[in-house]
């Protein structure tokens, strides 16, 4: 299967001379449709840099980023902006909802920015909110929503329209584990529909929702999990009296 997103030999260097910092070194990563890949590593390991480069928000110093087999470096500014609006969803730890817009307006925003009429955009946004059991919150302001609801609205906004790629940075943020699990179930439902996802986290429990976990250390990809065995054999342990 061809990759939805591919990084080839990506390096990122900030600053120069004595203050040069190598944030990423020769990173190769490829994610296919339907797959969720988690990137784990301590702070300063380059996780967030990797996500912003894969998400086309930042350019690599060397190496290539391909989205749907098209090299990002070859795109014009406008093409990149259009691709980000149409094909890519971002979920960040701090939700990034616009406080002056209601839940449904926040979700409709990417569609409107992409030229959809307000009415049509609103209808699509309402459908997504309904899928996420948030229909009754559509008219609420972000400040009137709970943390879990805000993050679900942020995910609705990231998924609205025909997105093929989802980038998430610690998507469950400060949510408790039950709300965090609800968020992960939503992300997994999106990838099961064919979206390719990349999520960075330092949390092993969050990472365990992914099909594959890659480990970064000092900007280098040092390891990754194998194809996981099924859960069947886990629970065969005997019991005692």
């Amino acid at each position, binding site marked *: 299967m061809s990759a939805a997103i591919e990084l080839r030999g990506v390096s990122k260097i900030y600053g120069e001379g004595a203050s040069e910092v190598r944030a990423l070194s020769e990173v190769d990563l490829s994610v296919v449709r339907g797959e969720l890949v988690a990137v784990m590593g301590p702070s300063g390991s380059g996780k967030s840099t990797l996500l912003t480069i894969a998400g086309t928000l930042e350019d690599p110093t060397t190496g290539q980023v391909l989205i749907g087999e098209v090299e990002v470096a070859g795109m014009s500014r406008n093409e990149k902006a259009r691709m980000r609006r149409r094909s890519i969803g971002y979920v960040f730890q701090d939700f990034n909802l616009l406080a002056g817009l209601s839940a449904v307006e926040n979700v409709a925003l990417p569609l409107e920015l992409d030229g959809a009429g307000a009415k049509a955009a609103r209808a699509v946004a309402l459908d997504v909110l309904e899928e996420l059991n948030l229909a009754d919150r559509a008219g609420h302001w972000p400040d009137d929503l709970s943390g879990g609801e805000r993050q679900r609205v942020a995910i609705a906004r990231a998924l609205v329209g025909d997105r093929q790629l989802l980038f998430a940075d610690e998507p469950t943020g400060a949510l408790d*584990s039950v709300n965090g699990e609800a968020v992960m179930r939503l992300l*997994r439902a999106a990838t099961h529909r064919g979206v390719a996802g990349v999520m960075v986290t330092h949390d092993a*429990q969050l990472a365990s929702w992914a099909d594959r*976990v890659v480990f970064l250390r000092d900007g280098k990809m040092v390891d990754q999990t194998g194809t996981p065995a099924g*859960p069947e054999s886990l629970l065969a342990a005997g*019991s005692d009296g």
Partner: protein
Amino acid sequence: MSVRHALLALLSEGPKYGLQLRQEFEARTGDVWPLNVGQVYTTLQRLERDGLVRAEGAEGESPQKGYQITSAGSQDLTEWLRTPSETVPPPRDELVIKVLVSLAVPDIDVHELLQVHRRHLVEIMQRYTRLKSEAPESDVGLALVVDAELFRLEGIARWLDAADARLARVKSTNLTTRAASVEDPLPSKEAAQP
């Protein structure tokens, strides 16, 4: 795991047969603890001997005996539920020992060793999470059991992260100290010479 008290808990809902107890036990613990029927009957016999349950109905001849909890059984169950579980750590944790021992072994990169164990843990956690995510959300028994295991494994993964960071810090401090002592070799010894 106390099968004895799990059976008492099921009987506190009302009288039940042995086979029924086995089925309910497995269903309520998310099918995580398989129980053989012999184990159920042996446990019931002991409970009966101790006066915590009473066999009713059949007079020994019928294979289907019903069991009922006694008031002593109810009291025993309540006491057990409220007794704190053993939370003292095992005296020797194998992973901790391996990491400690590795520090003395030349040619072992402790960070690489920690990563081997981290990957293994995450792989097991992936399997548990998959089990939970594929089960219906209504299967609360399974979710509780899987969560317990996930939090336990996460605790170990966090210890690995902490060990990684601590050892990295110690290494950089040692390097700095060593560099400083090379620049100023054994000043105290020289000072001691006449």
